[in-house]
């Protein structure tokens, strides 16, 4: 092996090692500060090609300003002066297509100048004032291209004429590729961070709006009750005083008004309940579901008897943790619905524990032999005041499941169902498991 061959092999090895280092360096950097990367990479890049000076120039969108991101071999204040005092824009009068960096960016091609005596090369005034342009004999500039757009260039200057062999060009290109992908990745990270920040902000706004809406509903539902109470009270006086004087038709009109006030009262109460669904959820205690079911059945005794319903409950539910009144409201709603929306001679409700659905949750299934729900309406039933039947068929305002869902959401719990017409429904709810 000749000395030259050995020397060249040595350089190849060094370059490969440098590539490995650069690539490691870049992959380890999770930072949006590009100059950290470029500075770290530029040095070995120049040293291993024998370049005397090097710059990384980047284009900042949208004003097309070009700024220096890193330098090699140039004075420390070079970047500051270039960026802060000179303010170059890519197409302005003071930048020239003869600058190797600009040329490579515009052409999106690597620019090689082996000997400046043969090809004219331009420099910025700042560069010329710092380094006498006559001393530069060779230049290579590689564009940084992202999405088919030049976003910058890496340029190296040699004070001696320089032969660029294939291996060196390959080294330069590969290094620039690493640069490019690092910049690209950093842009993506920055974009993702920005999006995340935007999402967070939007989420906070939504939360505030939701809270405002809750208190609006709470306050307005309370205030709406006052005038309604007055109307109801005075109508009750008219009803008492005029009972015998009114014709059948007039009595009918009066009854319609009374019925409408009752309905309005129910709607307002449901609104109040809905707004209360998300209040005070921090007050939580360990609850025994079997006790809760017994309380509900006791409360519904008259209703259960009237509908000739039968309720069976699993013996052992795991303990749950939460607000007693709210959980009572959830379970009572579901049990009542199973009995109410049921045309069987004997409505049967089966309450079972479904094990191991989620780690920190328990799952309760409430099954009925009722009228069932068509698939296409199964989402609709959770909407506020959404009803699938006329008031004559099944009474109610249609707020029950909306309240249930809202309470469960506050505990990060879920509700879903399996149902088809005439074959009953199975409602599943998850509840937080006690430790």
């Amino acid at each position: 092996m000749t000395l030259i061959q050995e020397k060249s092999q040595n350089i190849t090895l060094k370059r490969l090692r440098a590539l490995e280092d650069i690539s490691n360096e870049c992959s380890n950097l999770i930072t949006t500060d590009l100059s950290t990367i470029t500075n770290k990479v530029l040095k070995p890049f120049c040293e291993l090609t024998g370049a005397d000076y090097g710059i990384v120039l980047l284009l900042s969108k949208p004003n097309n300003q070009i700024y220096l991101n890193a330098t090699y071999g140039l004075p420390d204040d070079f970047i500051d002066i270039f960026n802060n005092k000179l303010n170059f824009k890519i197409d302005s009068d003071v930048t020239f297509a003869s600058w190797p960096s600009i040329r490579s960016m515009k052409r999106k091609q690597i620019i090689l100048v082996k000997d400046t005596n043969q090809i004219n090369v331009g420099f910025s005034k700042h560069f010329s004032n710092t380094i006498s342009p006559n001393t530069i004999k060779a230049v290579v500039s590689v564009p940084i291209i992202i999405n088919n757009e030049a976003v910058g260039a890496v340029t190296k200057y040699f004070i001696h004429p320089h032969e660029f062999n294939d291996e060196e060009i390959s080294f330069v290109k590969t290094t620039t590729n690493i640069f490019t992908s690092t910049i690209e990745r950093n842009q993506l990270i920055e974009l993702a961070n920005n999006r995340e920040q935007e999402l967070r902000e939007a989420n906070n706004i939504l939360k505030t709006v939701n809270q405002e809406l809750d208190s609006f509903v709470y306050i307005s539902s309370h205030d709406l009750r006052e005038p309604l109470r007055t109307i109801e009270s005075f109508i009750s006086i008219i009803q008492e005083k005029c009972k015998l004087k009114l014709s059948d038709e007039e009595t009918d009109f009066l009854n319609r008004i009374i019925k409408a006030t009752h309905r309005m009262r129910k709607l307002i109460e449901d609104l109040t309940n809905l707004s209360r669904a998300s209040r005070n959820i921090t007050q939580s205690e360990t609850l025994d579901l079997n006790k809760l079911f017994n309380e509900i059945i006791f409360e519904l005794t008259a209703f259960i008897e009237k509908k000739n319903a039968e309720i069976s409950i699993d013996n052992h539910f795991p303990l749950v943790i939460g607000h007693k009144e709210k959980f009572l409201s959830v379970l009572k709603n579901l049990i009542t619905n199973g009995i109410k929306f049921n045309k069987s001679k004997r409505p049967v409700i089966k309450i079972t524990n479904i094990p191991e659905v989620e780690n920190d949750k328990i799952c309760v299934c409430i099954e009925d032999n009722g009228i069932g729900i068509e698939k296409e309406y199964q989402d609709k039933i959770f909407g506020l005041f959404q009803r699938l039947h006329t008031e004559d068929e099944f009474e109610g305002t249609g707020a029950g499941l909306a309240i249930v869902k809202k309470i469960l959401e506050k505990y990060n719990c879920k509700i879903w169902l399996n149902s088809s017409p005439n074959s009953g429904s199975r409602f599943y709810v998850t509840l937080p498991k006690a430790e």
Partner: protein
Amino acid sequence: MGTILLIEDKSDDALLTKIALKELDINADLIVKKTGAEAISYIRSNISSGNPLPKIIILDINLPIMNGIEILEKFKASNYTKAIPIIVFTSSDLISDISYCYKLGAKLFLKKPNNINDFRNAIKKIQEVCLT
């Protein structure tokens, strides 16, 4: 039976109270004051002129400026008025309101009803509680 002081800013409820009293043949003078300040100055003028103080005070909670709970606190803190039975008569059904009013010394907490019959029952209840 003397004077009943009703502290109530809604004239509808004042009228309903008046109707219920009349229908129940309760022979009482109903004095209606719309704010806590008016009620306090009424009590003060009675004290300074030596006129008898009301036998019962019926108090709404949801009042402008000084709310019923603050009025209740004031009356229960004064030697002149602390012995007068105070009935809280309101549309609020907040458990926190109810327990706080009893703690402050309210004789009775009643939710305002929706019809005249319940109104009469409420007034009857007030009469019972205050006369026993």
